[in-house]
C-alpha cells in the first residue's frame, strides 16, 4: 500500500483521510512495514466500508488486514441503527462466527512426549475433518431449531462438554435473537450431516505447548505456564453459515437499490438495520453464530474423549472461545456518549479490556483472552484485551484486535512451491505431527504461505489493541 496516501497518527496508527464517498476516515493499526506490505485493495476496501450508511467513528483495519471481499479481512466497522446504519452480510462473510477456542490440559510437554503419535492418531480418528466428512449427529427439524437457538448451551444440554465451559465463551455460549425461521431450508439441509466437523482449508485442531510467557499476571489468570500443553480448535459454522452468507448476500445485492443504498462493490451487500431484511439477516446470522458455538463445543467433547483415552483422568477446561467473523450488538462510548452499535468484525477478534462487564470474574483483571491462530507449523498466540473499561486508555476499534497471520501467497503459488508429503515429513522431523486426509490441502496451507504472525501480534500489542500474553508452539495438527 502506498504509505503516502495515509496520515500517520502514531507509530502503529495510520489514517486514511475522508475523501469522496467516505463518511468517516479509515484507520489502519499496523507497523510501517505491515502497512507497506498490504495490498492497495485493502485501502480501497477500507474506504468503501467508510462510505456505508450509518457508520460510526471510523472504518478500521487490524494489523493482519488483507484483501477480502467487500470488507477487508481484518476489518472492523460499527453502525448505529438510529442513524440509518446497516448490517452487511458481506461484512460478516461466508464463514459466520468462524473462531478459535483453546483448552487447557493440565499436562506438561514431558507428559505427552512418549504419546504424541498415538494422541495424533486418536484425534485424527475422532475428529471428522476434510472435504466430504460427516459428523456423528443427525438433527431433525426440532433439534436443528433448538441448536440454532441454543448454541453451545444446547450442546452442553445434549451431553457435549460441561456447564462450566459456557462462562468462557462469548455471550456465555449462546447469542440472543437467533431466528431459525430466517435460515433457509437449504442452509439447514447443508448442516444436517456437518455437526461436529472441522471443515477444511485453514481450519484445524492443534495440540500446542506454551513456549514463552510475556505477561505473567495475565498468564496466571488464564492458567498458563511455560511447557503447558493446550489444545486449540479453529473452525466455524460449517455449511449452515456458508449457505446463510450465500442466501443473504444475494438478497441484499438485489434489494440495495430500492433501499437507496449505493454499493461500490456488490460484495458490500447490506441492508438497513431498521428494515425487515436487515432484521431477518440478524436473526439468521445469530443462528449461524450459535451453530458455530455448538460445533466447537462438540469438537471439544471429541477432543476430550481422545485425550481421556491416552491420559485417563485428564481434564481439559476451556480457557476461552472467540469468534472472528461476526456482527454483534454492543455498547461503546463514542465521543463521551454510550451508544448501542452493531459491530462487524470480519477476520478480527473482540478484545475487551480489563473490567469489561462481559468478562468472567477470573479474567476481569487480565482482560479478555484474544486467541490468535498461526499457520500450520508456526506459533499461535494468546493476547489480552488492552483497554480497561472506565480507564483513561482509549478503547481502540471498538475493542478489537487481530485474528491471524493472513496469507502471504495464493493457494496456487503454495502448491507450486511445496509438496504436501515432503512438508509433513519436514515438520515431523521438527517434532510437529500433521494428520490430514489431503496432501494438496497441506501444501496449500504450508507454513511459509502465511505472513509472520509474530509481526502481527507485535503490532497489535504496540498499537494498544491487545497485549501479548503467551506464545504457543504446535505439536500435533489435525487439518481438514
Amino acid at each position: 500500500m502506498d504509505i503516502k496516501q495515509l496520515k500517520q497518527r502514531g507509530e502503529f496508527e495510520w489514517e486514511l483521510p475522508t475523501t469522496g464517498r467516505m463518511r468517516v476516515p479509515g484507520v489502519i493499526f499496523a507497523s510501517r512495514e505491515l502497512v507497506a506490505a498490504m495490498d492497495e485493495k485493502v485501502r480501497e476496501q477500507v474506504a468503501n466500508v467508510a462510505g456505508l450508511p450509518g457508520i460510526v467513528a471510523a472504518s478500521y483495519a487490524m494489523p493482519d488486514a488483507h484483501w477480502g471481499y467487500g470488507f477487508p479481512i481484518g476489518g472492523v466497522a460499527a453502525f448505529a441503527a438510529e442513524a440509518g446504519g446497516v448490517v452487511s452480510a458481506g461484512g460478516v462473510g461466508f464463514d459466520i462466527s468462524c473462531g478459535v477456542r483453546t483448552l487447557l490440559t493440565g499436562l506438561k510437554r514431558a507428559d505427552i512426549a512418549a504419546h504424541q503419535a498415538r494422541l495424533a492418531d486418536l484425534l485424527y480418528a475422532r475428529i471428522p475433518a476434510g472435504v466430504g466428512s460427516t459428523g456423528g449427529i443427525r438433527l431433525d427439524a426440532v433439534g436443528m431449531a433448538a441448536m440454532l437457538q441454543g448454541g453451545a448451551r444446547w450442546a452442553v444440554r445434549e451431553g457435549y462438554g460441561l456447564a462450566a465451559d459456557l462462562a468462557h465463551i462469548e455471550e456465555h455460549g449462546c447469542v440472543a435473537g437467533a431466528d431459525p425461521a430466517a435460515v433457509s431450508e437449504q442452509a439447514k439441509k447443508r448442516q444436517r450431516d456437518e455437526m461436529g466437523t472441522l471443515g477444511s482449508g485453514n481450519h484445524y485442531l492443534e495440540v500446542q505447548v506454551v513456549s514463552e510467557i510475556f505477561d505473567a499476571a495475565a498468564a496466571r489468570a488464564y492458567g498458563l505456564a511455560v511447557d503447558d500443553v493446550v489444545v486449540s480448535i479453529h473452525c466455524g459454522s460449517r455449511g449452515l453459515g456458508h449457505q446463510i452468507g450465500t442466501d443473504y448476500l444475494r438478497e441484499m445485492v438485489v434489494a440495495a437499490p430500492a433501499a437507496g443504498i449505493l454499493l461500490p462493490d456488490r460484495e458490500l451487500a447490506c441492508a438497513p438495520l431498521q428494515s425487515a431484511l436487515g432484521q431477518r439477516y440478524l436473526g439468521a446470522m445469530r443462528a449461524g453464530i450459535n451453530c458455530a458455538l455448538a460445533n466447537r463445543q462438540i469438537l471439544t467433547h471429541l477432543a476430550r474423549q481422545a485425550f481421556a483415552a491416552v491420559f485417563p483422568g485428564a481434564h481439559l477446561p476451556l480457557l476461552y472461545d472467540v469468534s472472528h467473523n461476526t456482527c454483534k450488538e454492543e455498547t461503546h462510548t463514542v465521543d463521551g456518549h454510550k451508544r448501542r452499535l452493531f459491530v462487524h468484525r470480519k477476520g478480527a477478534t473482540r478484545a475487551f479490556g480489563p473490567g469489561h462487564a462481559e468478562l468472567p470474574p477470573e479474567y476481569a483483571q487480565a482482560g479478555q483472552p484474544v486467541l490468535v491462530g498461526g499457520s500450520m507449523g508456526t506459533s499461535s498466540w494468546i493476547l489480552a484485551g488492552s483497554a480497561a473499561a472506565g480507564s483513561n486508555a482509549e478503547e481502540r476499534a471498538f475493542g478489537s484486535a487481530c485474528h491471524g497471520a493472513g496469507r502471504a501467497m495464493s493457494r496456487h503459488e503454495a502448491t507450486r512451491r511445496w509438496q504436501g508429503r515432503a512438508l509433513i515429513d519436514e515438520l515431523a522431523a521438527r517434532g510437529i505431527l500433521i494428520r490430514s486426509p489431503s496432501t494438496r490441502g497441506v501444501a496449500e496451507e504450508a507454513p511459509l504461505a502465511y505472513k509472520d504472525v509474530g509481526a502481527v501480534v507485535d503490532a497489535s500489542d504496540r498499537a494498544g489493541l491487545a497485549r501479548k500474553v503467551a506464545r504457543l508452539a504446535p505439536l500435533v495438527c489435525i487439518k481438514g
Partner: protein
Amino acid sequence: MGAAMKWETFSHEADVGVRGVGSTMAEAFAGAATALTAAICDPAKVGAGETAKIECAAPDDELLLVDWLNALVFEMATRRMLFSRFAIEIEDRHLRATAWGEPVDVARHQPAAEVKGASFCALAVRQRPDGQWLAQCIVDV
C-alpha cells in the same frame, strides 16, 4: 489461457478465482464450473457416473453465474459429490443444466478444500472483443 483451454483458476490473496471462456455464455459457465472443481481437486480425476439437475434464474448475467456456481456448491456439499462434466442451456437469464460427477473419494481425489460459496468479488460475465464469452468470480475456500 491457450485456445484449447476453456477454464482456469486464478489467484486471489486469500482464496481462489474461477474463470471459464467459451464461444457461448453457456460454454463459459461450464468452464467456470470445471474451474470450481479444480479449486478443490484435479477435475481429470473426477468420474461422471452420477448426475444432478440444476435450474436457476437471475435478474442479470453476473447474478446468474453466482447462482449457478452456488447451486453446484450446494449439490457438492449435500450429496458429498464432485462434478467433472456439465451441459448447460441458458435462455433469458434462465439456466437449465445437468452436471455429471461422482461421490468424493478422499484417497483418490485428494480434495484440498471445500468451497464455501461463490462471491461477487472479481465477478464478470461478458463477451470479449474477440467474441469469446468470459465468466469469472472469486470463490471462498
